[in-house]
């Protein structure tokens, strides 16, 4: 699974993440800057109209009023307004979104191919993505149009002439629409889960004719039982080995297996293949820290870039001392009583084609970090690209006839272990990122992981709802919707905005890129120096300031999505979910306060 954002444990992330000061302090500094900047801008604009003294007085009174509003917000009034928002949503046929979702699921049954190599990933990513888009669209429409429509048809008059504070109006809308979204999300989640489970469920045919006595083992030793292949269903079949009672499990195919049972009636043996097992997964991995050795055996942070624009993976050169070293911590014999399973998904970069049918060989070496001079070759392997290669590290194994005890010899006293991957073939490369190799701790509960995935969607929905309500406090419906769409688009491309703001993007800033498009010059070529290009480059330098501000102020919505975890069958760590929830809260609070302020300063009868 690709994990571009790697989070430290929650508390470390919140208060101190290595050299950076921690998310909470960054948030506090940003908030202070935004508040002071906002006050200054408000004072300048108010001064133009009212003069500096009155402007200061107005701002002071607004702030005092805001504090009063915040401290006197009544839960009963918020609940009443939230309830009204729910009733309004139902009146506006919000349940149509659910019907659309059901229709999408029905069509998905036609168009999605359950015969792919990993149908669970396909179906899960489909339902989660469809849910995300639908629920965000619904949140967008409901939240952007409600308040402007109340102002336009003047129903707001009967609300603000009651002892209702701006905080309650804004909070009531945000809570109400979030409640509607929560209800819909719960329904969609329930239907999605059953859709995925029911669609993935299948069985195979197996008759006595498909089975034959097992071939003799090494040395001609006879082996009891039968083996054969199941019938072909959904683009795959399983090889099976049954014991003498006709019982056994199929070998995995398409990332699942089946249980096989046999019953004999009237001398006829019937084989029954059970439902697909282990199709939905929630692997709990233990990630290590990745470092590299270069071709001369010196330690480096990164391997070689083989020319990919996407610098996620680093590569090591085969037939040299280059290696990738993962250091794992917190291992104990109690946690891994049957040895350690090591999952890896390495990439291969070939500088010559060679025998394409044959994979590239590599080696797995283990090392005790306390005694780095001694290492133990676990085994050599042939790299399986694009699928998870599970290698078992037994509690005891042999290296050059020497018996090695995993926890006594290899794992250090403080529970650390180094796993070293090398590429054995000269001029071929292995590519890897930190999450590409991990120790498999245990299997989590898939449905719990599914719920966690929906919690991540819920966080995005609440954020979009709150942004929509905030924009609608001072913009009319369509404009508020555009502003919310802008927030969403910006939020999903925060990384790109940041790369533009820090001049990391290929092809320069917006104006330089436009120039390149118009003149059909590629991203890397040097631009000729003329008035247009110089002006564009300078204008881009100026534009970096607002782009930087936008990148810092918009929520990184793409990082909030945990669809990949669920679809790829990885447990969403609680740390990650907590970080996402805290990040969302970090945006919700200032956005709501902005909404309160805008609504407070608005003349609703204009």
């Amino acid at each position, binding site marked *: 699974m690709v994990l571009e954002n790697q989070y430290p444990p929650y508390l470390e992330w919140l208060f101190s993440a290595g050299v950076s000061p921690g998310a909470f302090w960054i948030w506090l500094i940003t908030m202070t800057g935004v508040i002071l900047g906002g006050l200054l801008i408000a004072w300048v604009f108010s001064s133009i109209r009212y003069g500096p003294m009155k402007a200061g007085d107005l701002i002071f009174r607004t702030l005092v009023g805001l504090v009063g509003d915040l401290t006197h917000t009544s839960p*009963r009034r918020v609940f009443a307004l939230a*309830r009204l928002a729910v*009733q*309004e949503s139902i009146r506006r046929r919000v349940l149509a979104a659910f019907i659309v979702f059901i229709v999408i699921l029905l069509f998905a049954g036609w168009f999605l191919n359950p015969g792919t190599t990993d149908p669970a990933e396909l179906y899960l990513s489909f339902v989660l993505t469809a849910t995300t888009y639908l629920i965000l669209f619904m949140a967008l429409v409901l939240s952007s149009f409600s308040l402007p429509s109340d102002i336009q*048809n*003047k129903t*707001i008059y*009967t609300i*603000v002439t009651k002892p209702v504070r701006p905080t309650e109006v804004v909070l009531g809308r945000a809570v109400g629409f979030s409640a509607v979204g929560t209800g819909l999300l719960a329904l969609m989640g329930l239907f999605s889960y059953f859709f995925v489970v029911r669609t993935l469920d299948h069985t195979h045919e197996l008759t006595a004719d498909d089975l034959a006595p097992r071939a003799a083992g090494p040395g001609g030793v006879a082996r009891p039982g039968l083996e054969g292949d199941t019938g072909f269903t959904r683009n795959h079949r399983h090889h099976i080995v049954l014991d003498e009672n006709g019982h056994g499990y199929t070998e995995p195919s398409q990332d699942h297996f089946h249980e096989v049972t046999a019953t004999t009636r009237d001398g006829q043996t019937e084989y029954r293949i059970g439902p697909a097992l282990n199709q939905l997964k929630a692997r709990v991995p233990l990630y290590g820290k990745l470092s590299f050795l270069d071709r001369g055996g010196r330690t480096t942070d990164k391997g070689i870039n083989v020319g990919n624009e996407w610098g996620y993976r680093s590569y090591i050169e085969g037939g040299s001392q280059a290696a990738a070293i993962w250091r794992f911590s917190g291992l104990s014999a109690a946690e891994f009583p049957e040895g350690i399973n090591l999952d890896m998904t390495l990439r291969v970069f070939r500088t010559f084609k060679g025998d394409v049918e044959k994979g590239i060989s590599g080696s797995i070496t283990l090392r005790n970090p306390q005694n780095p001079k001694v290492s133990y070759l676990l085994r050599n392997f042939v790299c399986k690209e694009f699928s998870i290669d599970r290698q078992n590290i037994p509690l005891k194994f042999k290296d050059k006839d020497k018996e090695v005890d995993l926890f006594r010899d290899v794992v250090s006293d403080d529970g650390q272990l180094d796993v070293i991957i090398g590429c054995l073939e000269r001029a071929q490369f292995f590519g890897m990122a930190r999450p590409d190799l991990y120790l498999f701790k245990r299997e989590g509960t898939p449905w719990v992981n599914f719920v966690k995935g929906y919690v991540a969607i819920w966080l995005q929905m609440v954020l979009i709802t709150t942004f929509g309500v905030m924009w609608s406090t001072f913009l009319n419906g369509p404009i508020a919707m555009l502003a919310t769409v802008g927030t969403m688009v910006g939020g999903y491309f925060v990384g790109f905005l940041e790369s533009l703001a820090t001049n990391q993007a290929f092809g320069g800033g917006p104006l330089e890129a436009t120039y390149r498009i118009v003149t059909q010059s590629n991203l890397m070529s040097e631009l000729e120096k003329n008035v247009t290009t110089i002006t564009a480059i300078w204008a881009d330098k100026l534009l970096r300031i607002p782009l930087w501000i936008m990148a810092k102020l918009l929520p990184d919505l793409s990082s909030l999505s945990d669809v990949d975890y669920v679809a790829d069958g990885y447990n969403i760590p609680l740390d990650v979910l907590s970080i996402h929830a805290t990040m969302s809260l970090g945006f919700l609070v200032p956005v709501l306060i902005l909404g309160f302020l805008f609504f407070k300063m608005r003349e609703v*009868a204009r």
Partner: protein
Amino acid sequence: MASQAVLDPAASAAAQPQTDVIIETRNLSKVYRDFWGRQKVRALKALDLEVRRGEIFGLLGPNGSGKTTTIKLLLGLLFPTSGQALVFGKDASDVTKNERIGYLPEESYLYRFLNAEETLDFYGRLFDMPASVRRQRIADLIHLVKLDWAKRRQLKEYSKGMTRRIGLAQALINDPELIVLDEPTTGLDPIGCREMKDLIIDLREKGKTVLMCSHLLADVQDVCDRIAILHQGELKELGRVDSLLKIRDVTEIRASGLSDAAKEEIKAVIARHSGNLVSMDNPTSTLEELFLSIVQDSEARPGRRARVEG
């Protein structure tokens, strides 16, 4: 705290001044501006006004005279450009004043997907009313506005008159001290109008203060104690209705029991005859006549200051 307040009424009075002035505007002005801040309309010009406890006060004026702007400023729906609007001694932007106010807008801007009970329940919740009080109040008000038979119907199925009545009920949900009514009889049939006027007078009998604006001069004349006439954002006339309608330079004598001869002579020397003098007073105009004359005068001589009377 409650017992302390009872023991020390002076302290309680100091904490919440029991002024007789419920609404006060001081030099209240409103200028509407466009997006760029340029002046579009000067809707209200330096309005000074007082509404006292227990009176029915009418705001009159032709379209665009500033009466709705005045009401919106008093309710905090608009912010004054200059001057001050005080309600119960508090600034109009202070939402706590709304706890003692009931407002019936010009058209009953209510949520049409709610029924009458849900509507009143919703507005009751906005006053933080406990459920039991709310239930009782809803039942009483629905009965008061005679909508028992339609209380479960969505408001979108209501006629205009019914909507006005449920609008009035929502304005009274908090048993307010001040009721602001914008065109209260609009959309009501003659019986409904009569009932609305009776209700307004009844509210005054209960010690409530009513501020209303209306185009229907007969309604204002029927119920208002005092009126203010606005024209082009300026206050043109303010005073008691009976006083304003009095024609001072004319004497009206009404008599009965006179002989035909006496009737002949009465034009010359009425006081020396032995007739039974029933009344001798100034005749009154109608409010409509007064209103039209003020508007005509104002248009002829813009900027004339109001004749203020108590």
